[in-house]
């Protein structure tokens, strides 16, 4: 230790006991001392180093040790005993120090724990109570110096040094102020006040730290790990899809949307409950370890499940153990006695060909089963094994085959659950139609279609068409009712679009067949009065037209097929004749009638001249009404344009335009 706060600790040679410090060295020494003083906030001037020896040593009891051997015995091992008790002593000491910190600190830095000279946790045993941590060490320094300096010249030197130090203080202060000459005492006092405040704040901070540090070291590392494991086990899951389904899929969907809109959405990982996602790389290993720990915990828990009912020996009955996972029931719901068929939530019922009761709960049960299968299928899709890499085709092929098998099994079960293959006529309404009558059922259809083979889709469509009029959305009175309207909208949004896609790809004969079925099995007048019915009709008609003109992906149909089609068309037309104008809703309901215009346009395209004539005659009133309304009455330009557009849908199909309509003068 040759450097001691900048002091030169090399023992000076004994030259009459006087330290050979010339002025420079002395000034240097003082400067160092001052620097140290400023750093630690000590005010040296109050120390009078002249008389630090308190002569207490003279009062030590040095005699009367004669009977030691008798008292303690000759083989008492002092060192060993001390060594054994040392840790306790040390701890006591620390506690004592911490306690004594609460007593007067006097504005000096009272850091109890960290002694800059001797390091952490060491204290001179003779430390006086109530002093700040600095002073003994300072005293030590001074003691050392004084000892090396000798007695008399020591005092002189102290005085010299004191005067020096005063000058040094002033010089230091000047340096602080940027070299300005010495100013009034007030400024000096201000400086000192500022320093005092700084020291005070530092003292407070350190006191707080010490306060907290009072309770350090109570838990062992294994304790902390234990607690951490428990907390983490709440967050980490084995299969994120199983537990956190909603979050995962929701964020995935949202990110996909955001990416489509061009906004980066990279926050895939489900953020923990604290919303904290720190550096993922560094946490990778810890996550692995946590995963392993969690798996261990989980398997342990599975082996010994905690029971929700505790039965004590000899007691009558069970005691329900309530916890977060098994909360007390607030409501007591009693099960009703008998259903005609009880459908358990997890066991799908096989479709029975006999008379099946179509009680609502049964149908709802079917729908839920379909949902179960759909969810399972979607999950399977997500777990689709990757395409085989080179050389691994054997193994990968096996996995793919297995996956395909399982997927097929699920898909078939789902198909059965839809009750589409149930023969018609046994039960009215047809089970599939019953399914479609519920909004839940409608919503599941688009998802179902994604997993069906094309021929299955065709079968579905056929069934639907065959029984169309029994759909609840097909009743025309439904328009007046808000809920009915919602169902219709739902139908139009969920069922029509995917089937539209399907029909748009279908060949001519299929379309012909479907329309034939449609007309045969359903009362057209009834069907046409509903939005879904019109939608389907329009669909078939327009598709047929496209195909007839050869604009589809298929070659122009043969004459035979075209004749079939024409025949169908005539049948349809004859049925609907005189009813065309009735297709429009009474104006009072303010319902949208654009779909009617579309249908009329579709009809017009395939019509002969005579038929077109009939069409125009029948809906003439409507056309005129719309045109007049758009031109004369006060309505917003958008609405007017819409009206004209609607009418033009129809008129253009005839080769006419709304502008050609001559408004009969009033």
């Amino acid at each position: 230790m040759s450097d001691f706060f900048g002091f030169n600790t090399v023992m000076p040679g004994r030259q009459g006991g006087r330290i050979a410090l010339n002025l420079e060295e002395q000034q240097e020494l003082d400067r160092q001392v001052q620097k140290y003083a400023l750093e630690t906030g000590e005010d040296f001037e109050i120390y009078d180093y002249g008389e630090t020896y308190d002569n207490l040593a003279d009062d030590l009891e040095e005699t009367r040790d004669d009977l030691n051997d008798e008292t303690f015995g000759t083989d008492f091992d002092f060192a060993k005993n001390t060594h054994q008790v040392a840790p306790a002593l040390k701890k006591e000491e620390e506690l004592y120090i911490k306690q004594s910190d609460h007593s007067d600190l006097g504005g000096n830095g009272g850091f109890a724990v960290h002694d800059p000279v001797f390091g952490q946790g060491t204290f001179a045993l003779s430390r006086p109570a109530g002093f700040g941590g600095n002073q003994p060490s300072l005293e030590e320094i001074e003691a050392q110096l004084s000892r090396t300096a000798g007695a008399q010249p020591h005092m002189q030197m102290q005085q010299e040094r004191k005067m020096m130090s005063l000058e040094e203080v002033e010089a230091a202060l000047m340096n602080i102020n940027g070299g300005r000459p010495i100013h009034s005492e007030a400024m000096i006092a201000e400086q000192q006040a500022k320093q005092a405040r700084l020291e005070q704040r530092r003292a407070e901070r350190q006191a707080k730290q010490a306060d907290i540090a009072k309770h350090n070291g109570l838990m062992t590392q294994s304790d902390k790990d234990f607690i951490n494991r428990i907390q983490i086990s709440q967050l980490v899951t084995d299969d994120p899809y199983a537990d956190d389904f909603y979050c995962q899929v929701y964020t995935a969907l949202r990110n996909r949307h955001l990416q489509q809109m061009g906004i980066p959405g990279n926050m895939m990982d489900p953020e923990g409950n604290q919303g904290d996602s720190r550096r993922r790389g560094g946490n990778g290993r810890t996550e692995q370890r946590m995963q392993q720990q969690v798996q261990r915990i989980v398997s342990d828990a599975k082996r010994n499940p905690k029971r929700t009912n505790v039965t004590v020996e000899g007691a009558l009955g069970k005691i329900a153990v309530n916890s977060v996972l098994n909360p007390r029931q607030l409501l007591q719901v009693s099960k009703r006695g008998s259903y005609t068929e009880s459908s358990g939530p997890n066991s799908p019922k096989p479709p029975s060909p006999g008379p099946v009761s179509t009680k609502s709960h049964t149908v709802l049960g079917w729908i839920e089963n379909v949902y179960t299968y759909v969810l399972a299928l979607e999950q399977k899709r997500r777990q689709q094994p990757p395409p085989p890499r080179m050389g691994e085709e054997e193994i990968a092929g096996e996995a793919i085959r297995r996956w395909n098998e399982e997927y097929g099994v699920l898909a078939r079960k789902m198909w059965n659950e839809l009750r589409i293959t149930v023969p018609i006529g046994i039960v009215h309404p047809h089970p599939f139609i019953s399914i479609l009558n519920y909004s839940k059922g409608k919503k599941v259809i688009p998802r179902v279609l994604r997993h069906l083979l094309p021929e299955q889709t065709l079968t579905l469509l056929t069934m639907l068409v065959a029984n169309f009029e029994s759909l609840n959305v097909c009743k025309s009175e439904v328009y007046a009712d808000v809920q009915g309207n919602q169902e219709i909208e739902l139908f139009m949004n969920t069922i029509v679009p995917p089937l539209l896609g399907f029909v748009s790809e279908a060949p001519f004969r299929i379309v012909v067949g479907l329309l034939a079925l449609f007309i045969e099995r359903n009362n057209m007048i009834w069907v046409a009065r509903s939005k879904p019915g019109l939608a389907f009709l329009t669909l078939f008609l327009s598709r047929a037209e496209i195909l007839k003109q050869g604009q589809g992906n298929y070659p122009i149909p043969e004459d035979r097929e075209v004749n079939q089609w024409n025949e169908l068309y005539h049948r349809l037309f004859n049925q609907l004749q005189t009813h065309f104008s009735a297709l429009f809703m009474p104006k009072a309901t303010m319902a949208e009638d654009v779909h009617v215009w579309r249908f009329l346009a579709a009809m017009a395209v395939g019509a002969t001249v005579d038929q077109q004539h009939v069409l125009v005659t029948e809906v003439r009133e409507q056309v005129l009404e719309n045109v007049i309304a758009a031109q004369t009455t006060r309505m917003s330009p958008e609405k007017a344009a819409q009206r004209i557009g609607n009418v033009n849908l129809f008129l253009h199909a005839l080769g006419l335009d709304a502008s050609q309509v001559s408004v009969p003068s009033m």
Partner: protein
Amino acid sequence: MTGNIGGLPPFLTLVGQPVTVELKNDLAITGVLVSVDQFLNIKLDNIKVVDEERYPHMLAVKNCFIRGSVVRYVQLPAPSVDTALLQDAARRERQQPATGARK
């Protein structure tokens, strides 16, 4: 698995959104959702009491922690919740009830 996490996932996606929590004592508080846990305890930031500050003692309160058991309703912003997805999540939850066995 990690036990019943049932009611929690929708809230996890709502952290950072403004919600309104109505308590069983009829106090309704609007604030930004900071955190939620498995007991549906809720932490809100920048809270504002809903009804005309009939509860003036809350004027100075900026953030709060609400114990899950006193909540009656939580009003969520509609566009932030995907109801169809929620239904699916509930169906899955029903099919695979998380094992209630946990230490």
